[in-house]
């Protein structure tokens, strides 16, 4: 059951944001095909440790595809070749013996490389802080069933809320735009009646923050949708656009 393959890893090494960085070629022998991609990197790191070398830095945490912490470009595609999957869920059996695998960090002006494959995605947090919430202080909430919400609406909101904030959309976007990320949160809250009171302010402020963080502009290339591990749709971007138009032209919010 446990087949092994030999691969050549071309992995990006970069000491920090100031460093230029380069590809390091590491031959990796006897990779068990049942390994996940990150477990393969673990074994490489274990080997590097025994040789007294610096481990490859990469972010990861839950390893079940929900925390959104992992992610790099594998052979030029964010989170690797499989659809609707985070990097931690990619398994080595999807590669063949003798393959050369290029691994690169997310690249965007808004995402500085921290080290090797790890990047700083705090800009995504900043976008949420600009309005990706409903101002409901703890304690004052009315009964949960006081506000019926049609099932289709709740489902659509859930589709958008499934975003894990991994940043693959930014990484894959030819313009390094974070519109899919931003629109997912705007959509979720705009669809729900609880989110309507702040909808206008939210759309405008989150968009301005998006721009201020240095993300690019959406040109509807749909690469984000193609790599999104949670299959967030660009219909959310259209909804954000609508919310933005309503907010800037039809509301009192400047």
């Amino acid at each position, binding site marked *: 059951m446990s087949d092994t393959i030999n691969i050549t890893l071309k992995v990006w090494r970069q000491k920090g944001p100031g460093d230029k960085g380069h590809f390091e070629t590491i031959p990796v022998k006897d990779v068990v095909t049942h390994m996940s991609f990150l477990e*393969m990197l673990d074994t490489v790191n274990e080997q590097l440790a025994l040789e007294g070398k610096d481990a490859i*830095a990469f972010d990861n945490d839950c*390893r079940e595809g929900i*925390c959104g912490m992992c992610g790099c470009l594998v052979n030029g595609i964010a989170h690797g070749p499989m659809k609707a999957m985070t990097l931690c869920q990619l398994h080595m059996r999807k590669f063949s013996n003798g393959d050369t695998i290029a691994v690169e960090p997310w690249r965007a002006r808004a995402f500085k490389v921290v080290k090797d494959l790890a990047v700083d*995605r705090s800009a995504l*947090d900043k976008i949420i*802080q600009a309005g990706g919430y409903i101002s409901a202080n703890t304690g004052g909430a009315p009964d949960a069933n006081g506000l*019926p919400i049609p099932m289709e609406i709740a489902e659509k909101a859930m589709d958008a809320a499934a975003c894990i904030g991994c940043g693959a959309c930014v990484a894959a976007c030819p313009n390094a735009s974070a519109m899919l990320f931003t629109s997912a949160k705007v959509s979720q809250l705009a669809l729900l009646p609880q*989110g309507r009171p702040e909808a206008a302010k939210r759309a405008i402020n989150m968009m301005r923050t998006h721009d201020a963080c240095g993300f690019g502009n959406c040109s509807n290339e749909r690469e984000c949708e193609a790599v999104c591990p949670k299959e967030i749709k660009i219909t959310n971007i259209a909804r954000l656009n609508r919310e933005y138009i309503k907010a800037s032209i039809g509301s009192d919010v400047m």
Partner: protein
Amino acid sequence: MQLESKIPAGPLTQKWTKYRGDQKLVNPANKRKYTLICVGTGLAGSAASASLAELGYNVKTFCIQDSPRRAHSIAAQGGINAAKNYPNDGDSIWRLFYDTIKGGDFRAREGNVYRLAEVSADIIDQGVAQGIPFARDYGGLLANRSFGGAQVSRTFYARGQTGQQLLLGAYSSLSRQIATGKVKMYPRREMMDLVIVNGKARGIIVRNLITGEYESHAGDAVLLCTGGYGNVFYLSTNAESCNVGAAVKCWRKGALMANPCFTQIHPTCIPNSGDFQAKLTLMSESLRNDGRVWVPKKKGDTRRPNDIPESERWYYLEEKYPSFGNLVPRDVASRNAKYVCDAGHGVGPTGYAVYLDFSQAIQRDGKDVVQRKYGNLFDMYLNIVDDNPYETPMMIYPASHYAMGGLWVDYELQTTIPGLFALGECNFSDHGANRLGASALMQGLADGYFVIPYTIAPYLASIYGEAGSVTEDHPAFKETTKQVDALFKKLTSINGTRTPDSIHRELGKVMVDEVGMSRNEAGLKKAIDKIRELREEFWKNLRVPGSLNDYNKNVEKAHRVADYLEFAETLAIDALERAESCGCHLREESQSEEGEALRKDDKYCYVAAWEYKGFNQKPELHKEPLVFENVQLTQRSYK
């Protein structure tokens, strides 16, 4: 040491109301004079940080990941319990309380558990107000399901991502407070030590995981919301960065570690497939509703499962427990899987797995029905194991999943160190010896949103004159930083041949084999010896390459493993001391005539709280007797 639980007097149903009515308050204008330190941004940490900031306190919040949104609460799938009784099926606060305390095998405090049940409904209200898209019925009202064998439908859910949605809800409230400046957020920081000044928790030292710098942060109280210690078993369903470090550091400084031997083992995880395995993935327990568990009757049978004829399959759960069959509780299912594998019937590459067979369900209901119910789980299994569960039986094996034990806290969630509070999975308080399904989310949020904002006030009121009096310039910070620095220098100067991971993996093996689901005195003693040997090996033969002033996974792992090696021994000692079968665990010496778990209420109806006595010293046991005035202690039976 006298353990004072501070449970308010009076009838059970009035305790929390009375407490809230009687407690001291902090004047709104004075709240801004306090700075609270919150470590961790899971459900408990995010909820507490946001709620306390809303009240006007200044909060400094720390998390180990790159963003507060990634804490491991996010991985909870099933749902969250609340005594809303929306389905009109007989649920009530009392029933949720009773189910929780009974589920915990009567090893939790009545007062705490009742409060948890009381505030459970508020959590759902709060979540909906935050915009959490809970599942709904066609009429637009909230949907409920029955979970983990409960007889009422009280579980609210958001697809299979309830934990994610609840956490993102709390994260959104936290983000709002970060934007107002009331919360200062420090990501990629790991707590390295607690700073105590004049006997009170006054701050923490954290390590910046990118630069390796030690940073001092002073405050008026410290809230530990750092989750559980499931990774002591190395392979668990916990995330990579889940660790016991922060709790252990507080334990060394005088907080007590309560009931560490109470850990939950989840029966339906995808089994280990080799030494490279980093973690185990949990699949919903609902699989057991339709799957049949079996192993080959012949030991060491290596045939493919479909080649093994019906007569040579051993449906051990159905045979042993005719009335419950495959739906026996988590601990019984887990334990029996271990027994048959230990006896040589196990399957899969490591021999530690059992089959979960859906062929009968597929024949009976059709593939479509099975796909509708379990499609996403089957896909997940197919991706990880590369085997199609529609055609060949799934393989499953139990894995460590949740820690009921944790830092000892009183009714106010305060540890034995004044000013140090512990919330969520990190404390021991509400689940007793076993946790009900869909109750972890409930407890984390209850502590953060609805308990700590009230229970921290009396302490803060009591130190009013000292608010803000201790700053980072206090010599205690320099002193503690020096100690932390010394520890890291030591870790990196051993220059041996073993990586932290390799020792951790070995520790995990010992813990799973001897301190897991089924324990006995001889095994536990053996385990304690082995843990000591491993600790010695660690401090003699560790190798940590790379720089201390850098993003260095080896350094991070090294000190976490050091903490596990100390904590694991206490866990084993606690298990040894508790010579009863209780909650999740079978103590082999304590069984009924039919071979079932036997609890011993006359001897062990207490909380075991362990005091740290120094490196390589046996910790000291303090007992907090558990008093039950409202419920009758009963034994479980699943025959």
